[in-house]
Protein backbone atom coordinates (compact mmCIF):
# COMPACT_ATOMS: atom_id res chain seq x y z
CA UNK A 1 0.00 0.00 0.00
CA UNK A 2 2.81 2.42 0.83
CA UNK A 3 4.13 2.56 -2.73
CA UNK A 4 1.00 4.51 -3.71
CA UNK A 5 1.83 7.28 -1.31
CA UNK A 6 4.39 9.97 -1.86
CA UNK A 7 6.06 12.28 0.61
CA UNK A 8 5.46 15.97 0.14
CA UNK A 9 8.94 16.32 -1.34
CA UNK A 10 8.29 13.93 -4.20
CA UNK A 11 4.83 15.43 -4.57
CA UNK A 12 6.69 18.61 -5.32
CA UNK A 13 8.63 16.75 -8.01
CA UNK A 14 5.42 15.31 -9.41
CA UNK A 15 3.77 18.69 -9.57
CA UNK A 16 6.57 19.95 -11.80
CA UNK A 17 5.50 17.71 -14.64
CA UNK A 18 1.93 17.04 -13.54
CA UNK A 19 -1.34 18.78 -14.33
CA UNK A 20 -0.83 22.14 -12.56
CA UNK A 21 1.93 22.91 -15.07
CA UNK A 22 -0.60 23.56 -17.81
CA UNK A 23 -1.95 26.49 -15.86
CA UNK A 24 1.45 28.17 -15.72
CA UNK A 25 2.59 27.92 -19.33
CA UNK A 26 2.90 31.60 -19.97
CA UNK A 27 4.41 32.62 -16.64
CA UNK A 28 8.02 32.56 -15.50
CA UNK A 29 8.72 29.06 -14.32
CA UNK A 30 11.06 29.49 -11.32
CA UNK A 31 8.96 32.19 -9.70
CA UNK A 32 5.87 29.99 -9.68
CA UNK A 33 7.65 26.96 -8.19
CA UNK A 34 5.93 27.19 -4.82
CA UNK A 35 2.48 27.78 -6.26
CA UNK A 36 1.95 24.41 -8.05
CA UNK A 37 2.42 22.53 -4.78
CA UNK A 38 -0.17 24.67 -3.05
CA UNK A 39 -2.56 24.40 -6.00
CA UNK A 40 -2.18 20.63 -6.19
CA UNK A 41 -2.69 20.25 -2.47
CA UNK A 42 -5.77 22.43 -2.58
CA UNK A 43 -7.05 20.61 -5.66
CA UNK A 44 -7.21 17.40 -3.68
CA UNK A 45 -9.42 18.91 -1.08
CA UNK A 46 -12.00 20.29 -3.55
CA UNK A 47 -15.40 19.03 -2.56
CA UNK A 48 -17.23 18.01 -5.70
CA UNK A 49 -20.26 15.80 -6.04
CA UNK A 50 -19.20 12.17 -6.04
CA UNK A 51 -15.46 12.84 -6.07
CA UNK A 52 -13.31 11.33 -3.37
CA UNK A 53 -13.00 14.05 -0.78
CA UNK A 54 -13.01 12.16 2.49
CA UNK A 55 -9.38 11.16 2.58
CA UNK A 56 -7.43 10.17 5.71
CA UNK A 57 -4.95 13.00 6.12
CA UNK A 58 -1.63 11.52 7.11
CA UNK A 59 1.04 14.16 7.69
CA UNK A 60 3.79 13.95 5.10
CA UNK A 61 1.93 11.47 2.87
CA UNK A 62 -0.42 12.36 0.03
CA UNK A 63 -2.25 9.96 -2.22
CA UNK A 64 -1.15 9.58 -5.80
CA UNK A 65 -2.56 7.32 -8.50
CA UNK A 66 -5.90 6.58 -6.88
CA UNK A 67 -8.99 6.69 -9.02
CA UNK A 68 -10.91 9.94 -8.70
CA UNK A 69 -14.16 8.01 -8.90
CA UNK A 70 -15.92 6.99 -5.70
CA UNK A 71 -17.31 3.48 -5.24
CA UNK A 72 -20.79 4.55 -6.37
CA UNK A 73 -19.57 5.04 -9.97
CA UNK A 74 -20.33 2.14 -12.31
CA UNK A 75 -18.37 1.04 -15.37
CA UNK A 76 -19.74 2.20 -18.74
CA UNK A 77 -21.50 -0.29 -21.01
CA UNK A 78 -19.68 -0.09 -24.36
CA UNK A 79 -21.50 -2.92 -26.08
CA UNK A 80 -24.25 -1.65 -28.43
CA UNK A 81 -26.07 -4.99 -28.48
CA UNK A 82 -26.94 -4.50 -24.81
CA UNK A 83 -29.12 -1.55 -25.73
CA UNK A 84 -30.44 -2.91 -29.01
CA UNK A 85 -32.33 -5.79 -27.46
CA UNK A 86 -36.09 -5.25 -27.88
CA UNK A 87 -38.00 -4.60 -24.67
CA UNK A 88 -39.98 -7.82 -24.90
CA UNK A 89 -36.87 -10.02 -24.81
CA UNK A 90 -35.40 -8.63 -21.62
CA UNK A 91 -35.72 -10.56 -18.39
CA UNK A 92 -36.82 -8.87 -15.16
CA UNK A 93 -33.25 -8.43 -13.97
CA UNK A 94 -32.10 -6.90 -17.23
CA UNK A 95 -35.01 -4.45 -17.24
CA UNK A 96 -34.21 -3.50 -13.68
CA UNK A 97 -30.53 -3.07 -14.54
CA UNK A 98 -31.29 -0.85 -17.51
CA UNK A 99 -33.58 1.34 -15.41
CA UNK A 100 -30.90 1.52 -12.75
CA UNK A 101 -28.27 2.65 -15.22
CA UNK A 102 -30.38 5.69 -16.07
CA UNK A 103 -30.02 6.93 -12.52
CA UNK A 104 -26.61 5.70 -11.45
CA UNK A 105 -23.42 7.68 -11.86
CA UNK A 106 -21.24 6.24 -14.62
CA UNK A 107 -17.52 6.66 -15.22
CA UNK A 108 -16.21 8.08 -18.47
CA UNK A 109 -15.21 5.40 -20.98
CA UNK A 110 -11.43 5.19 -21.61
CA UNK A 111 -10.24 6.72 -24.87
CA UNK A 112 -9.08 3.40 -26.30
CA UNK A 113 -12.53 1.76 -26.02
CA UNK A 114 -15.08 2.43 -28.76
CA UNK A 115 -18.42 0.92 -29.65
CA UNK A 116 -17.44 0.60 -33.31
CA UNK A 117 -17.72 -2.68 -35.23
CA UNK A 118 -13.94 -2.75 -35.63
CA UNK A 119 -13.31 -2.80 -31.90
CA UNK A 120 -11.59 -6.00 -30.83
CA UNK A 121 -10.73 -6.55 -27.14
CA UNK A 122 -7.95 -9.03 -27.96
CA UNK A 123 -6.27 -6.62 -30.36
CA UNK A 124 -6.59 -3.79 -27.81
CA UNK A 125 -5.04 -5.92 -25.08
CA UNK A 126 -2.20 -6.97 -27.37
CA UNK A 127 -1.57 -3.35 -28.37
CA UNK A 128 -1.45 -2.32 -24.73
CA UNK A 129 1.03 -5.06 -23.98
CA UNK A 130 3.25 -3.95 -26.85
CA UNK A 131 3.11 -0.35 -25.69
CA UNK A 132 6.25 1.08 -24.11
CA UNK A 133 6.33 4.19 -21.95
CA UNK A 134 2.72 5.07 -22.73
CA UNK A 135 3.35 5.48 -26.45
CA UNK A 136 -0.02 4.18 -27.59
CA UNK A 137 0.26 5.87 -31.00
CA UNK A 138 3.38 3.87 -31.83
CA UNK A 139 1.96 0.60 -30.49
CA UNK A 140 -1.25 1.02 -32.49
CA UNK A 141 0.62 1.85 -35.68
CA UNK A 142 2.83 -1.23 -35.20
CA UNK A 143 -0.30 -3.32 -34.72
CA UNK A 144 -1.94 -2.03 -37.91
CA UNK A 145 1.30 -2.51 -39.84
CA UNK A 146 1.51 -6.08 -38.53
CA UNK A 147 -2.03 -6.87 -39.64
CA UNK A 148 -1.34 -5.31 -43.01
CA UNK A 149 1.86 -7.35 -43.40
CA UNK A 150 -0.02 -10.55 -42.53
CA UNK A 151 -2.68 -9.69 -45.10
CA UNK A 152 -0.12 -8.90 -47.79
CA UNK A 153 1.77 -12.15 -47.24
CA UNK A 154 -1.41 -14.17 -47.39
CA UNK A 155 -2.56 -12.42 -50.57
CA UNK A 156 0.79 -13.11 -52.25
CA UNK A 157 0.43 -16.76 -51.35
CA UNK A 158 -3.16 -16.72 -52.60
CA UNK A 159 -2.30 -15.28 -56.00
CA UNK A 160 0.62 -17.68 -56.40
CA UNK A 161 -1.43 -20.76 -55.49
CA UNK A 162 -3.57 -23.04 -57.63
CA UNK A 163 -7.37 -23.12 -57.43
CA UNK A 164 -7.59 -25.99 -54.91
CA UNK A 165 -5.09 -24.43 -52.52
CA UNK A 166 -6.78 -21.03 -52.75
CA UNK A 167 -9.73 -22.38 -50.82
CA UNK A 168 -7.53 -23.36 -47.88
CA UNK A 169 -5.57 -20.08 -47.59
CA UNK A 170 -6.97 -17.83 -44.87
CA UNK A 171 -6.69 -14.14 -45.77
CA UNK A 172 -8.46 -12.35 -42.95
CA UNK A 173 -5.69 -11.05 -40.63
CA UNK A 174 -8.02 -10.95 -37.63
CA UNK A 175 -8.90 -14.65 -37.81
CA UNK A 176 -5.21 -15.46 -38.28
CA UNK A 177 -4.35 -13.35 -35.23
CA UNK A 178 -7.00 -14.97 -33.04
CA UNK A 179 -6.20 -18.49 -34.16
CA UNK A 180 -2.46 -17.95 -33.72
CA UNK A 181 -2.92 -16.72 -30.16
CA UNK A 182 -5.25 -19.61 -29.41
CA UNK A 183 -2.62 -22.03 -30.66
CA UNK A 184 -0.04 -20.42 -28.35
CA UNK A 185 -2.13 -20.68 -25.19
CA UNK A 186 -0.77 -23.26 -22.73
CA UNK A 187 -3.28 -25.73 -21.32
CA UNK A 188 -1.52 -26.29 -18.02
CA UNK A 189 0.93 -24.15 -16.09
CA UNK A 190 3.75 -24.66 -13.62
CA UNK A 191 3.82 -23.04 -10.21
CA UNK A 192 6.77 -23.12 -7.78
CA UNK A 193 5.62 -24.60 -4.47
CA UNK A 194 7.78 -24.67 -1.37
CA UNK A 195 7.91 -28.07 0.25
CA UNK A 196 10.55 -29.29 2.66
CA UNK A 197 12.86 -26.37 1.94
CA UNK A 198 12.87 -26.88 -1.83
CA UNK A 199 10.85 -25.31 -4.61
CA UNK A 200 9.13 -27.80 -6.88
CA UNK A 201 7.50 -26.94 -10.22
CA UNK A 202 3.98 -28.25 -9.78
CA UNK A 203 1.55 -28.58 -12.74
CA UNK A 204 -1.55 -26.52 -12.11
CA UNK A 205 -4.64 -25.62 -14.21
CA UNK A 206 -4.57 -21.99 -15.32
CA UNK A 207 -7.55 -19.62 -15.56
CA UNK A 208 -8.50 -18.38 -19.04
CA UNK A 209 -7.18 -14.87 -18.62
CA UNK A 210 -3.77 -16.16 -17.46
CA UNK A 211 -3.51 -18.40 -20.51
CA UNK A 212 -4.37 -15.57 -22.87
CA UNK A 213 -1.87 -13.33 -21.12
CA UNK A 214 0.90 -15.92 -21.36
CA UNK A 215 0.27 -16.45 -25.08
CA UNK A 216 0.51 -12.72 -25.78
CA UNK A 217 3.50 -12.28 -23.50
CA UNK A 218 5.45 -15.09 -25.12
CA UNK A 219 4.66 -13.78 -28.57
CA UNK A 220 5.83 -10.26 -27.75
CA UNK A 221 8.98 -11.38 -25.91
CA UNK A 222 9.92 -13.69 -28.75
CA UNK A 223 9.54 -10.93 -31.30
CA UNK A 224 11.44 -8.41 -29.24
CA UNK A 225 14.43 -10.50 -28.32
CA UNK A 226 15.08 -13.22 -30.87
CA UNK A 227 15.41 -11.32 -34.12
CA UNK A 228 17.98 -9.70 -36.31
CA UNK A 229 19.04 -6.27 -35.09
CA UNK A 230 17.65 -4.42 -38.10
CA UNK A 231 14.38 -6.33 -38.42
CA UNK A 232 11.31 -4.26 -37.60
CA UNK A 233 8.62 -5.41 -35.21
CA UNK A 234 5.69 -5.68 -37.69
CA UNK A 235 7.80 -7.84 -40.01
CA UNK A 236 8.87 -10.20 -37.26
CA UNK A 237 5.47 -10.27 -35.59
CA UNK A 238 3.63 -11.08 -38.82
CA UNK A 239 6.06 -13.91 -39.47
CA UNK A 240 5.58 -15.34 -35.96
CA UNK A 241 1.79 -15.02 -36.15
CA UNK A 242 1.68 -16.91 -39.43
CA UNK A 243 3.91 -19.64 -38.04
CA UNK A 244 1.78 -19.93 -34.89
CA UNK A 245 -1.33 -20.09 -37.07
CA UNK A 246 0.12 -23.23 -38.65
CA UNK A 247 1.16 -24.63 -35.23
CA UNK A 248 4.85 -24.21 -35.94
CA UNK A 249 7.44 -21.74 -34.78
CA UNK A 250 9.15 -20.86 -31.48
CA UNK A 251 6.12 -19.72 -29.50
CA UNK A 252 4.21 -22.95 -30.05
CA UNK A 253 7.43 -24.81 -29.23
CA UNK A 254 7.64 -22.91 -25.95
CA UNK A 255 4.07 -23.90 -25.14
CA UNK A 256 4.89 -27.53 -25.88
CA UNK A 257 8.01 -27.34 -23.70
CA UNK A 258 5.80 -26.13 -20.87
CA UNK A 259 3.45 -29.07 -21.46
CA UNK A 260 6.39 -31.48 -21.50
CA UNK A 261 7.71 -30.18 -18.21
CA UNK A 262 4.25 -30.45 -16.69
CA UNK A 263 4.03 -34.01 -17.93
CA UNK A 264 7.43 -34.80 -16.42
CA UNK A 265 6.38 -33.36 -13.08
CA UNK A 266 2.93 -34.92 -13.00
CA UNK A 267 3.75 -36.86 -9.83
CA UNK A 268 4.09 -33.55 -7.97
CA UNK A 269 0.47 -32.65 -8.68
CA UNK A 270 -0.46 -33.70 -5.15
CA UNK A 271 1.58 -30.83 -3.70
CA UNK A 272 -1.27 -28.57 -4.73
CA UNK A 273 -3.86 -27.73 -2.11
CA UNK A 274 -6.41 -26.09 -4.35
Amino acid sequence: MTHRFRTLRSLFLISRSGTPRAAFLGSSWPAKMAAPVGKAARGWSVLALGLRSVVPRLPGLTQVRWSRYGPEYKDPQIDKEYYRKPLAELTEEEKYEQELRKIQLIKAAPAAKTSSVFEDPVISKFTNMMMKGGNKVLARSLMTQTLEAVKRKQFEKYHAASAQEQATIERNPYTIFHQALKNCEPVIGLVPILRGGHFYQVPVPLPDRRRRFLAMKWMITECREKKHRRMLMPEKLSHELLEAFHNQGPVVKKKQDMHKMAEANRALAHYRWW
Partner: protein
Amino acid sequence: MATPSLRGRLPRLGNPRKPILKPNKPLILANRVGERRRERGEATCVTEMSVMMACWKQNEFRDEACRKEIQDFFDCASRAEEARKVRSIQDMGESGNLPPKKLNKLLQRFPNKSHVS
Protein backbone atom coordinates in the same frame (compact mmCIF):
# COMPACT_ATOMS: atom_id res chain seq x y z
CA MET B 1 -15.76 -17.84 32.87
CA ALA B 2 -14.23 -14.60 34.27
CA THR B 3 -10.71 -13.52 33.33
CA PRO B 4 -8.14 -15.12 35.69
CA SER B 5 -6.86 -12.58 38.23
CA LEU B 6 -3.62 -10.67 37.66
CA ARG B 7 -3.11 -9.72 41.33
CA GLY B 8 0.48 -10.32 42.45
CA ARG B 9 1.46 -12.22 39.30
CA LEU B 10 3.86 -9.74 37.71
CA PRO B 11 7.43 -8.81 38.85
CA ARG B 12 6.83 -5.36 40.37
CA LEU B 13 8.49 -3.36 43.16
CA GLY B 14 5.43 -3.57 45.40
CA ASN B 15 5.09 -7.34 44.92
CA PRO B 16 6.86 -9.30 47.74
CA ARG B 17 6.59 -12.77 46.23
CA LYS B 18 8.20 -14.49 43.23
CA PRO B 19 6.57 -13.49 39.90
CA ILE B 20 4.17 -16.02 38.42
CA LEU B 21 4.05 -14.44 34.96
CA LYS B 22 6.95 -12.93 33.05
CA PRO B 23 5.37 -11.58 29.86
CA ASN B 24 7.78 -10.57 27.09
CA LYS B 25 5.28 -8.12 25.57
CA PRO B 26 3.08 -5.55 27.33
CA LEU B 27 -0.32 -6.95 28.37
CA ILE B 28 -2.37 -4.67 26.11
CA LEU B 29 -5.08 -5.74 23.66
CA ALA B 30 -3.73 -5.51 20.10
CA ASN B 31 -5.88 -4.09 17.30
CA ARG B 32 -5.90 -7.33 15.39
CA VAL B 33 -6.98 -10.94 15.90
CA GLY B 34 -5.10 -14.06 14.84
CA GLU B 35 -5.85 -15.80 11.54
CA ARG B 36 -8.02 -18.87 11.28
CA ARG B 37 -6.08 -22.06 10.71
CA ARG B 38 -6.75 -22.96 7.09
CA GLU B 39 -7.90 -26.47 6.36
CA ARG B 40 -5.69 -28.83 4.45
CA GLY B 41 -7.09 -28.90 0.89
CA GLU B 42 -6.33 -31.55 -1.68
CA ALA B 43 -5.47 -31.27 -5.37
CA THR B 44 -8.48 -31.19 -7.71
CA CYS B 45 -8.75 -32.54 -11.27
CA VAL B 46 -5.80 -34.91 -10.94
CA THR B 47 -7.53 -37.73 -12.88
CA GLU B 48 -8.47 -35.48 -15.81
CA MET B 49 -4.94 -34.15 -15.86
CA SER B 50 -3.38 -37.61 -15.95
CA VAL B 51 -5.76 -38.73 -18.72
CA MET B 52 -4.82 -35.66 -20.74
CA MET B 53 -1.12 -36.27 -20.19
CA ALA B 54 -1.43 -39.91 -21.26
CA CYS B 55 -3.11 -38.69 -24.45
CA TRP B 56 -0.26 -36.22 -24.98
CA LYS B 57 2.33 -38.94 -24.53
CA GLN B 58 0.65 -41.03 -27.23
CA ASN B 59 0.22 -38.16 -29.71
CA GLU B 60 3.55 -36.33 -29.27
CA PHE B 61 2.01 -33.38 -27.41
CA ARG B 62 -0.17 -32.26 -30.31
CA ASP B 63 -3.25 -30.40 -29.06
CA GLU B 64 -5.56 -31.23 -31.99
CA ALA B 65 -5.39 -34.94 -31.24
CA CYS B 66 -6.40 -34.49 -27.60
CA ARG B 67 -9.24 -31.96 -27.91
CA LYS B 68 -11.73 -33.98 -25.86
CA GLU B 69 -9.39 -34.62 -22.94
CA ILE B 70 -8.31 -30.98 -22.86
CA GLN B 71 -11.93 -29.84 -22.85
CA ASP B 72 -12.71 -32.22 -19.97
CA PHE B 73 -9.76 -30.85 -18.03
CA PHE B 74 -10.94 -27.27 -18.55
CA ASP B 75 -14.46 -28.16 -17.48
CA CYS B 76 -13.16 -29.84 -14.35
CA ALA B 77 -10.96 -26.82 -13.56
CA SER B 78 -13.86 -24.36 -13.94
CA ARG B 79 -16.13 -26.56 -11.81
CA ALA B 80 -13.49 -26.73 -9.08
CA GLU B 81 -13.08 -22.95 -9.23
CA GLU B 82 -16.83 -22.40 -8.83
CA ALA B 83 -17.01 -24.85 -5.95
CA ARG B 84 -14.15 -23.08 -4.23
CA LYS B 85 -15.83 -19.70 -4.64
CA VAL B 86 -19.14 -21.01 -3.32
CA ARG B 87 -17.39 -22.60 -0.37
CA SER B 88 -15.50 -19.42 0.51
CA ILE B 89 -18.67 -17.29 0.33
CA GLN B 90 -20.52 -19.81 2.46
CA ASP B 91 -17.75 -20.02 5.02
CA MET B 92 -17.54 -16.28 5.53
CA GLY B 93 -21.15 -16.00 6.72
CA GLU B 94 -20.27 -18.27 9.60
CA SER B 95 -21.19 -19.16 13.16
CA GLY B 96 -21.78 -15.80 14.88
CA ASN B 97 -18.30 -14.34 14.47
CA LEU B 98 -16.93 -12.30 11.61
CA PRO B 99 -13.99 -13.79 9.66
CA PRO B 100 -10.59 -12.57 10.94
CA LYS B 101 -9.85 -10.33 7.94
CA LYS B 102 -13.06 -8.33 8.35
CA LEU B 103 -12.56 -8.14 12.10
CA ASN B 104 -9.09 -6.72 11.60
CA LYS B 105 -10.42 -4.08 9.22
CA LEU B 106 -13.07 -3.11 11.77
CA LEU B 107 -10.52 -2.90 14.56
CA GLN B 108 -8.28 -0.75 12.35
CA ARG B 109 -11.08 1.73 11.97
CA PHE B 110 -12.05 1.69 15.65
CA PRO B 111 -8.85 0.83 17.48
CA ASN B 112 -8.34 0.22 21.17
CA LYS B 113 -6.67 3.26 22.73
CA SER B 114 -3.58 2.17 24.60
CA HIS B 115 -2.76 5.76 25.56
CA VAL B 116 -4.54 8.40 27.58
CA SER B 117 -4.85 11.44 25.32
